[in-house]
């Protein structure tokens, strides 16, 4: 916590902001990238959203009050940027978010940056059938291995509700995967 407090102070000071931001980038870029990628599916889209996320972090660090961990705050920005991206692009394509997501998953088969097997592709289809928040919970627990206590801070939802949500998500996914 002390090192985080010190990093935040350096991010808020004009003289040390740039160096501190480089450290922040180095520390969190991969974790945020994979979190975003699990939402938007394509590398190019994840790249755009990740860059927007860090730009937003850089510009708004002065407004960070420290009520949550820095990591949780950044994750929240990343999540919102990814969901906004899906929203805006689905509207542009005259599709619902669900249709847009299904389209993105269909494109994975021909995507050079997807090396998953048929079962991994089917898992993506199964995840896309879940409500949006449940998708987030499942991805964060199953692929990103985020602890419930951290997830609770990021999603501002109780641990109990998250555990219930994950349990239900797993059941639905297993049903989807075994139905054919």
């Amino acid at each position, binding site marked *: 916590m002390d090192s985080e407090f010190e990093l935040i102070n350096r991010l808020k000071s004009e003289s040390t902001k740039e160096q501190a931001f480089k450290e922040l*980038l*180095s520390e969190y870029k991969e974790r945020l990238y994979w979190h975003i990628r699990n939402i938007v599916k394509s*590398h190019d889209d994840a790249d755009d959203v990740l*860059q927007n996320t860090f*730009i937003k972090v850089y510009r708004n660090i002065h407004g960070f009050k420290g009520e949550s961990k820095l990591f949780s705050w950044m994750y929240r920005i990343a999540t919102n940027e990814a969901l906004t991206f899906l929203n805006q692009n689905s509207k542009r394509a005259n599709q619902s978010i669900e249709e847009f997501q299904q389209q993105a998953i269909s494109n994975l088969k021909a995507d050079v940056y997807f090396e*998953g097997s048929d079962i991994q592709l089917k898992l993506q289809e199964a995840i896309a059938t879940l*409500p949006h928040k449940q998708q987030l919970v499942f991805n964060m627990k199953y692929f990103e291995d985020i602890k419930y206590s951290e997830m609770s801070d990021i999603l501002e939802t109780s641990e109990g*509700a998250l555990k219930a949500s994950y349990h239900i998500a797993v059941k639905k996914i297993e049903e989807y995967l075994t139905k054919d």
Partner: protein
Amino acid sequence: MKNEKLHNIKTAGFKTPNDYFDSVEDSVFSKLNEPQILENTESPGFKVPKDYFESLDEIILSKVDGNESKVIPIFNWKKIAYVSGIAASVILAFNLFINNPKNVTFDNLETASIETYLMNEDLNAYDIAPYLGNVDLNSDNFVENTINASDIEDYLLQNSDVEHLITD
């Protein structure tokens, strides 16, 4: 019971179903042989271009450094606001003189205006009660919608803090 001594009690008293131990092995092996539905799916299967993360810092830093330039407004918004205020006052005064207030009826009022009035007035139930009739409520108006369990579950997960509903 008073005369029971510990050294006389030889067993815990537990029992098992008939032939239980004969079937334990079969049960264990059948569970082990069940297909693991989510086997080999720990990774989502996504890849990144070569050296992507190595080059990312420079790209982002160039964007945050390059976007800090001062914005010079094209219009002087203070003057525009001042002129707009005068224009709005003139239009309002004009409308007040033209429209005959005696012709305002309840039907002329917009619903939004009525709602705003009700929200701003500090009305309580006793203020409204004299205007309510004695018509009995028809329970059919409240139970015509059937909502299935799946929709309720999705709504709760998207919109509510479940713990709050359980504990309150």
